[in-house]
């Protein structure tokens, strides 16, 4: 070996062997996984407190915040949830995915410090200037709305810091390959993280292109960028960054279904192709936000909103099959072979990492995916644009999907990386359910109110004199779901932070088992490896999904056909 120091199995390597999994953990990676994950959870809690205030304001009966604070907290919520929590946690996932699975150490601690320092400085700047009341512009900061320059500078710093962390990830992968730290092909979890990282680079470059001239404009140095141009490029940042989340979430699904049930991808070639489809076609999604904009024509919209014939949607439908199929196959090999769905009841539903993953998959696919594709259909967007249907959609993708998957991951990350067992394990078992059900109620409340025309980002629905009792009722559902989801989020944050201080140390032994289904007597690992018709339950579930999709999709065309003709 030419550079043995980069392998964690080399003598004197700066790492440890995990007492639970037997995998090698690099100390430098471990430190930055901790720093980034904890920062992420702090921003999640901040954004969550904001979420509760917003839910209690849009619940028209409660109507908690005054008008200026509503828009201020809404800006704060968007930034902390969609940008800060997600980006910090994703950097933690990248550092994990490029070291432990490849038996390799992190490329550079200095670069990791630089990345973390820039991200944290930028985050504090943005949060400060929003709460100071100098940036009431929403997360999108659509020009000619103008915020204090610190707002844009903070976002630029967070983006550059994230890019620096992503560079550290790429450099680690390169060195691992060059020095032969592993042989063969990288595992699917690392591959998924790599896809997320590639999309992140493209995304953050869009961010630079749009944020830098906006920052110089806010300083008075340059002319105002065109608002339509701003929307096009901003959504290259805004929508694509959510696809980074989708990629990272899918990688987490593969990771956790493997850890909790022993699942493996049923076909590595198909799974990896699906990740490549994300990389190639997801960047067209910017157009989803411009479907009823002036100045962009039908051909451009149709091609871009369909991600070129829905190839990125196809990728999600592939993962939506292969993840549960891998779980079903693992369960059947363990001997849970009763009927079509016998394996489902034997799944470890009390293991919060498993229930979180399963809920994430179902909420993301059934609710988030179906609504997203439908609302993002060029013409159907006419009856959805800027109504509450839009946040109704993305609260089940990025919250019910990504955030819940990341929460599930924390139930293993904290014991394995911080080496402490969770406190109040009984409460932890309930947490994903509470959060999942709460956020689903939020999304239903938003979607139904939105289909009655209730706008998003609006403090009040009585001043217009057009919204009746049904719309008010659905906003009540939103409010109550918000309380439930916030309770789940608060429990999660308290459990995580409490565990860091009071959890039982587990150095040198295995972590306490959350519960995994045992193999039954007489079962054979790998016995179904060549049976391509063993996933009966999954094919039934996915075909049921497709039926729901078709019903919702065509129901929306019908609703569209009922409004005034327009060209």
């Amino acid at each position, binding site marked *: 070996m030419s550079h043995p120091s980069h392998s964690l199995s080399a003598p004197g390597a700066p790492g440890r062997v995990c007492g639970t999994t037997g995998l090698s953990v690099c100390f430098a990676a471990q430190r930055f996984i901790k720093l980034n994950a904890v920062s992420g959870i702090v921003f999640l809690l901040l954004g969550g407190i904001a979420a509760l205030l917003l839910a209690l304001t849009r619940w028209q009966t409660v109507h908690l915040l005054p008008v200026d604070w509503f*828009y201020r907290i809404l800006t704060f919520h968007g930034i902390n949830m969609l940008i800060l929590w997600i980006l910090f946690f994703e950097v933690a996932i990248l550092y994990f995915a490029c070291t432990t699975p490849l038996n390799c150490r992190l490329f550079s601690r200095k670069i990791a410090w630089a990345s973390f320092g820039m991200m944290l400085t930028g985050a504090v700047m943005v949060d400060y200037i929003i709460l100071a009341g100098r940036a009431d512009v929403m997360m999108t900061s659509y020009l000619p709305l103008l915020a204090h320059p610190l707002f844009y500078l903070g976002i630029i710093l967070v983006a550059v810091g994230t890019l620096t962390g992503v560079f550290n990830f790429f450099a680690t992968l390169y060195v691992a390959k060059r020095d032969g730290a592993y042989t063969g*092909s990288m595992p699917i979890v690392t591959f998924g993280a790599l896809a997320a990282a590639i999309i992140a680079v493209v995304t953050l470059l869009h961010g630079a292109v749009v944020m830098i001239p906006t920052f110089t404009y806010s300083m008075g140095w340059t002319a105002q960028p065109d608002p339509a141009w701003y929307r096009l490029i901003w959504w290259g940042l805004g929508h694509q960054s959510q696809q980074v989340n989708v990629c990272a979430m899918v990688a987490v699904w593969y990771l956790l279904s493997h850890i909790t049930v022993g699942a493996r991808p049923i076909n590595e070639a198909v799974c990896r192709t699906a990740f490549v489809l994300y990389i190639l076609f997801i960047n067209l999604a910017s157009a989803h936000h411009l479907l009823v904009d002036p100045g962009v024509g039908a051909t451009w*919209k149709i091609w871009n909103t369909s991600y070129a014939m829905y190839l990125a949607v196809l990728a999600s439908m592939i993962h939506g*099959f292969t993840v549960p199929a891998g779980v079903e196959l693992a369960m059947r090999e363990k001997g849970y072979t009763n009927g079509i769905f016998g394996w489902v009841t034997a799944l470890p539903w009390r293991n919060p990492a498993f229930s979180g993953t399963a809920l994430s998959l179902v909420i993301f696919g059934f609710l988030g995916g179906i609504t997203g594709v439908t609302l993002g259909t060029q013409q159907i967007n*006419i009856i959805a*644009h800027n109504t509450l249907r839009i946040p109704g959609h993305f609260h089940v993708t990025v919250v019910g999907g990504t955030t819940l998957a990341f929460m599930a991951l924390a139930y293993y990350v904290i014991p394995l990386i911080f080496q402490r067992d969770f406190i109040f394990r009984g409460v932890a078992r309930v947490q994903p359910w509470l959060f999942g059900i709460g956020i689903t109620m939020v999304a239903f409340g938003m979607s139904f109110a939105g289909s009655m025309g209730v706008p998003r980002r609006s403090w009040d629905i009585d001043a*217009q004199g057009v919204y009746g009792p049904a719309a008010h009722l659905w906003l009540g559902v939103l409010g109550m779901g918000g309380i439930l989801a916030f309770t789940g989020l608060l429990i999660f944050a308290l459990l995580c932070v409490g565990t860091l201080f009071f959890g039982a140390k587990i150095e040198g032994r295995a972590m306490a088992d959350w519960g995994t289904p045992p193999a039954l007597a007489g079962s054979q690992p790998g016995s179904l490896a060549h049976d391509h018709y063993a996933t009966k339950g999954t094919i039934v579930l996915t075909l049921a999904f497709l039926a729901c999709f078709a019903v919702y999709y065509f129901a929306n065309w019908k609703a569209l056909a009922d409004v005034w003709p327009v060209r």
Partner: protein
Amino acid sequence: MSLRPLTTPWFHGPAGHEKIWLGCAILWCFVMSLMMPYWHFRGKQNSTGEAYTVKPADFFARTEKFVASNRVGTFKNPIANALMTELPIVEPPAGGDAYLMGRMWQWYPALRLRKGETYRLHLSSLDLQHGFSLQPLNMNFQVLPGYDHVLTLTPTSTGEFTIVCNEFCGAGHHAMTGKIFVE
């Protein structure tokens, strides 16, 4: 295994249930891809994005001229303490142009349209971005300063319709409304 490098050959095509699902999924993607061009030619509701650049001052002047020559009455808002208290009601000629201006925080002027007639509705903003949201129909279009967004619109139902703003435009955003009456 999901967490370990793959050392055995792993590249093989889909088979069995996976192949069935992949086939269904690709077919569905194909159906959805064809729906949009189909609706573009055969459907009646499309956003074509027809737009022209216009200076806010010019759009203001066109709107004022439109109001002056086509005014038919005055709308008084019955909602107490509303930001918009009254608006001129303007009736464009059938098949003609109508101008609707978004500004903080009202849609100006109110329009009177005839059922079954087709109008070219010009939308623009004098200040920030606004959202044209026609209720209770729930038809929504984006309005930008500097762009004259033209909708070729045919009312097919009668009554009083409210235009709500659904793009955030400051503290009075929730109360930014306008009116379209169809007879």
